[in-house]
């Protein structure tokens, strides 16, 4: 049975596209046939995060307007079997697509793929309505900040108004060191306020920047704790029962000494 999942947040810049890319990679690494759709028409970025920007010929709007076959527009990722990207149009605007178009597109994709991931644009207007139209469930990405959680709360309401099941939360850019110092809301605080289920926690890391520099999603990296966090989330999406670790930073002499010496620029997990 195939499933369409929309990755959304309300607020921009919380990591929707990075999350979509890494979950798509992780689901494909687990042996699924996955397509990730960039629904941010006019501001496409998912191709860049995936490192596939040089291979785009056709896009989502071309498919919807019947200028090319769906299969022709899909870009196959050569690093893992079963991973495909449907890029957004860069030169059009969000009104080029309607919710009905998206419902038809998703229905076609679900015939071919186990998972259809939709990378939703920021905001709650047309792009959001398009993204959510064909989805079976929603993942909300937020960061531990007042503004991001406020927007996430609004999205929870909108998702439920669209008669989708209760969305699940990914808490991104979490900094356990700051939480233990009392300078960041804890995941318990955030779950208490949003009252939805937690799908996963992704700690803040410089690795996200370096991986986006290279167009190589961190989920490909077997040794990265951040990559492992994404792979665990993908496992939970597939219905596996995997515990969410608490990411307490390693303290003690050596980790602290290394951090001082600049050997690792961040908290170790």
């Amino acid at each position, binding site marked *: 049975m195939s499933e369409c999942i929309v990755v959304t947040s309300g607020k921009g810049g919380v990591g929707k596209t990075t999350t979509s890319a890494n979950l798509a990679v992780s689901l494909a690494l687990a042996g699924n046939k996955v397509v990730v759709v960039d629904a941010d028409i006019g501001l496409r970025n998912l191709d860049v995060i995936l490192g596939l920007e040089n291979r785009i010929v056709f896009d989502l709007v071309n498919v919807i307007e019947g200028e090319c076959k769906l299969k022709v527009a899909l870009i196959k990722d050569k690093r893992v079997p079963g991973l495909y990207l449907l890029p957004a149009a860069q030169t059009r605007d969000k009104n080029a697509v309607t919710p009905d178009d998206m419902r038809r597109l998703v229905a076609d994709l679900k015939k071919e793929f186990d998972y259809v991931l939709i990378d939703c644009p920021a905001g709650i207007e047309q792009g959001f309505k398009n993204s959510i139209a064909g989805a079976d469930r929603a993942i909300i990405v937020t960061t*531990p*900040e*007042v503004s991001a*959680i*406020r927007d996430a*709360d*609004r999205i929870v309401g909108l998702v439920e108004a669209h008669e989708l099941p209760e969305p699940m939360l990914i808490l991104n850019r979490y900094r356990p*060191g*700051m*939480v*233990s*110092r*009392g*300078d*960041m*809301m*804890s995941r318990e*605080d955030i779950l208490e*306020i949003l009252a939805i289920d937690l799908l996963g926690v992704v700690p803040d890391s410089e690795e996200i920047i370096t991986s986006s520099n290279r167009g190589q999603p961190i989920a490909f990296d077997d040794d990265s704790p951040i990559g492992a966090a994404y792979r665990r989330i993908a496992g939970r999406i597939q219905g596996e029962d995997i515990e969410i670790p608490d990411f307490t930073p390693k*303290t*003690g*002499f050596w*980790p*602290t*000494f290394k951090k001082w010496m600049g050997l690792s620029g961040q908290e170790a997990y």
Partner: protein
Amino acid sequence: MLDVIRKMFGQPSKGNGSSSDAKQRLKFLLVHDEVALTPAQLDMMKNEIMDVIKRYVEFDAEGVEFRLDKGDGHIALVSNVPVRRVNNTRD
């Protein structure tokens, strides 16, 4: 110096506890978002209601509490007006 040694051995240094500010501000925002009433509008409502109360009783204006509160799935308007004495001479 002690602080430096503490840091060396990985004892977390004390933050300024800003997360509780964040949580409080967030709760306040979400309640106001849900009822679609800004703090300024809530204040207007409070003033109008207090004007009515004033016609019947004398109260301590400084001690008035007036806020939105989110309980189990519902939002309540909570107010506490400390009455000084009942105004019997109303016309």
